[in-house]
């Protein structure tokens, strides 16, 4: 379903993103397309450092909006922001995830790794215990995947819509009865960064379709 654009429902968002990409907005009356040519490879490099701060692709889009377009930031998980990140991500489909390692970024990576390994919630489970130690086994009837975020934003059949990696992680945290991190919080971006680093070299499939 995901590799055929005519049947991948996420393509409805990609087309919305394409339209938004070309639309002028904000006090600067600028469209994304006024400054950027293609965005090939960009989604494969996020999260990344931006003025010493770690930001994911959605946050980077919002920085462009507030700093360049002089427009209000889009709400995280909003249809518009997901559409833009799907449109940008689609342009990196097939390219290997390419997360830069640096001294400067190391604390963020370490922090994300620690979150991945930390037991949390009433069920007291870490990501590692299931997604590394038990990947391939079945939780109830469902195979446990290796937690490689190669296709975000994804069209999830359970959601019947598009959602970000952070929304998926939020589901997992609710599943172990933990209090989820807030959308856009440093904890979530660091975890996202670690997961993308862990999947480095794997090909992006954005926008993927998952159960």
């Amino acid at each position, binding site marked *: *379903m995901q590799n055929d654009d005519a049947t991948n429902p996420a393509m409805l968002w990609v087309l919305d993103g394409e339209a938004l990409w070309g639309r002028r907005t904000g006090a600067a009356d600028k469209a994304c397309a006024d400054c950027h040519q293609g965005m090939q490879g960009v989604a494969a490099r996020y999260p990344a450092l931006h003025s010493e701060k770690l930001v994911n692709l959605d946050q980077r889009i919002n920085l462009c909006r507030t700093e360049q377009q002089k427009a209000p930031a889009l*709400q*995280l*998980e909003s249809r518009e922001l997901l559409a833009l990140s799907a449109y940008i991500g689609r342009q990196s489909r097939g390219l290997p995830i390419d997360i830069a390692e640096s001294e400067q970024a190391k604390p963020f990576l370490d922090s994300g790794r620690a979150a991945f390994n930390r037991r949390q919630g009433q069920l007291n489970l870490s990501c590692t215990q299931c997604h590394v130690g038990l990947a391939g086994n079945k*939780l*109830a*009837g*469902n195979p446990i995947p290796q937690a490689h975020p190669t296709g975000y934003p994804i069209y999830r*059949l*359970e*959601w*019947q*819509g598009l959602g970000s990696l952070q929304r998926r992680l*939020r*589901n*997992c945290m*609710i*599943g172990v009865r933990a209090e989820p991190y807030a*959308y856009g919080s440093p904890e979530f971006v660091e975890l996202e960064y670690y997961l993308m680093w862990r999947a480095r070299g794997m090909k992006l499939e954005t926008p993927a379709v998952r*159960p």
Partner: protein
Amino acid sequence: MITRREFVVLACATASCAAPGALHATPAAVDEAIRAITGGTPARRGRVKLDAPALIENGNSVVLGVSVESPMTQADHVKAIHVFAPMNPLPNMVSVYLGPRSGRAQFSTRVRVADTQTLVALAQMSDGSFWSDQVSVVVTIAACLEELK
């Protein structure tokens, strides 16, 4: 952040998830829906092929296809294909109307399957006969549903 779907209690779109007042159709309701189309003419097994995965990980979107053996000529063609689900809230899933200009009697779509059940496809021929097929599907229970805290 409140998304549209988070204010809804159920994590799935079907009414299968033990909702208060959850309801489903019944094999009898399917029989009745079929009789409304056939007018009581018996539907024979054969000529129709209903395709759906035997094991469904998520019932929210299931690829379902139907094809019918027919020359699809003016004199001999399929007029309509109907699909039914006895354990969904409503027995009728989808109906399509075809003719000689279709070339082939087939279609596919994505449907919601509320629970483990036997889906039924019914084809209505230009000669007034009815043919059917059925397929049993098993819906697994999602382990980590997004839910309200």
